[in-house]
């Protein structure tokens, strides 16, 4: 049994690293559609991880969240984002307040911080959580970083989806997911928030003729 879990945890470690790398693509690329595809890829890996954990642990309710996550994060949300991107007809690609090289360096720093801040917690753990908790925190914080440095409204939505993915992974790796009803509530909130943000991207494009949120600066002292 113990050996079984060790083997499995190696597979999950590999998936976790792949997820982190696809999150870094979000920071390092300038093409908006590549960013969305990177998010789709990461969400798909996450769903795969979730399915594997459900299979290895034998906890049935994880299968339900896996299914919902597959439909929601791999199909519905990216599909909606592609639809919005086509609809508002974005010509310029992703722009950032700071250069890509610097962003990548800062992301590396964030990953170190994620490991450092969870050190006191993970040193007592011997499950796969030991590697997954810092990775999930890193994904969350890199998503946060993408949100605050990118100018385009769509990239901010992608940052949010990334944060949610990181948290879903954190819940999964630390405690086999949250209780089912909470998990479903969280999914519902994500779906509704992405739809509302998408509608606002469209409205902002209509009134400001840009989705560069740097132009949103009428309200200040």
């Amino acid at each position, binding site marked *: 049994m113990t050996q079984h879990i060790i083997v499995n945890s190696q597979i999950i470690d590999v998936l976790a690293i792949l997820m982190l790398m696809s999150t870094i693509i979000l920071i390092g690329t300038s093409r908006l559609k590549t960013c969305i595809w990177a998010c789709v890829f990461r969400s798909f890996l996450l769903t795969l991880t979730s399915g594997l954990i459900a299979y290895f642990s034998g906890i049935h309710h994880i299968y339900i969240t896996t299914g919902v996550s597959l439909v929601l994060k791999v199909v519905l949300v990216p599909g909606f984002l592609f639809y919005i991107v086509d609809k508002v007809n974005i010509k310029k690609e992703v722009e950032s307040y700071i250069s890509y090289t610097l962003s990548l360096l800062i992301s590396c720093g964030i990953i170190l911080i994620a490991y450092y801040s969870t050190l*006191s917690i993970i040193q007592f753990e011997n499950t796969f959580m030991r590697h997954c908790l810092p990775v999930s925190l890193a994904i969350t914080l890199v998503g946060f970083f993408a949100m605050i440095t990118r100018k385009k409204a769509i990239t901010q939505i992608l940052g949010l989806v990334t*944060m949610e993915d990181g948290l879903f992974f954190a819940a999964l790796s630390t405690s086999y997911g949250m*209780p089912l009803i*909470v998990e479903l509530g*969280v999914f519902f909130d994500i779906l509704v928030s992405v739809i509302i943000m998408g509608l*606002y991207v469209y409205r902002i494009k209509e009134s400001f003729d840009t989705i560069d949120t740097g132009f949103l600066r*009428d*309200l200040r002292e």
Partner: protein
Amino acid sequence: MVILLLLIIPIITAIACVLIGKHSVSKYISIAGSFLALLYNIFLNYNIHVQHSLLGLNGFFYMDALSILTTQIVTIIGFASSLYSAGYMAAELHEGVVTERKLRWYYFLFHMFIFTMLLVCVTNNLGIMWVAIEATTLSTTFLVGFYNKKQHQEAAWKYIIICTVGITLALFGVILTYHSSKGVLGEIGYALNWTDLLTVADRFEPHLIKLAFIFILVGYGTKAGLAPMHTWLPDAHSQAPAPISALFSGVLINCSLYGIIRYHILTSKCVGPHYSSTLLMVFGLISVIVSIPFILVQRDYKRLFAYSSIEHIGFIALGIGFGGMYSVYGAELHTFNHAVTKSLLFFCAGNLFLKYKTTKMESIKGIIKVTPITGIILIIGVFAITGTPPFNIFVSEFMVLADGFASGNAFIIIFSSLLVVCITLIFIGYIYNIFKMIFGVSPEAIPKGEISKFTIAAMCFLLVFVLVISFYVPPLLREILNSIYDIIRNA
């Protein structure tokens, strides 16, 4: 089952308002629905007074004194605000600013907003509490952007992005709490239930709980408007229609603070009260200090009131952080006082906006001649909100500060002294800004008279609370506040 009914009332009202499109009918449904919720909450309040706490639906719902205080504020301000909406929106409809079709969705979202806030307070599950706090953001984004001009869209975008990010960070705190409780309680579905968490909180892993509290404080603190995460608040509160601003300032920030207090209790029980109290005090003091310059040089009266909300939420956090008997009592009384007084001021602001069509203070003169009732209520409200004796806010601020000075702890005494300075500066800022608007010669074109009987009724309803609590705290409220101190202290 008893608690479930409280949640069903706003949902039915919301659906009824959407089905009946005519504003002349739906405004009465809206008022009746929120009045029913208010009455029902008083009934629940009485039950809790007798039984101390209520559990419902297999432990899914839980109410104690802390939740009943917040739901009481939600239902009181909800009723006042739906009364005010009836008058305010009728005037907007008459001028053609909004359409009846839009008002359908206004009332629908209004009552869904009340539903989500009530759900925050009555759920036993901290995960559902997170879902509900996020749902308050989602149900109000379109209300912030209701008029749909450039500045409203900007405010709505900032609101949803900043709040969603903040609350997403809080989810990490919830996950850490769940992880630590699962380590003690084992593989069970109710490891996030407040009632179960509280019994085992002293056996949690301290590192985990400390990290969780930081994420919760930053996350829910964003929604509560604690500085430095407050940047969405002045925009959203000033751009939303006045009845919604009243709900935002009066209750939404209290609901988020309610979430923080729950985790404060858990953390105190696990690692002792010092850690979370200190964090609350520091964030509270920063909020009070940050609001001062913006209040002193403000040109927009709705933003003035919004910054004042940041000050007051900071003050409440400080009072909870002080942790003494009178300061906790005072801080909780302050949530009530601030809610009724600030909502009253936002109603005045709504009347001014309808009369003068601007939110710039320099364009407004002679309120007392144009709308005498609004003018008088505005004067009372401004004196009350700045903590002038004998009004209600003075009572609660005095309790917190007196307890702070009497605590004997050098750290708390320094904080209290700084607070006195801050409150004085804010008083000056308020009086200087508002009194220029009240007197003077009004522009000729402004029609004289009040907006409607609904708006007057809503303002008088809240004024009663302001005046009564200035001199006398009703026994039912006093009992609740005392039990809250026990809940926070006996953790």
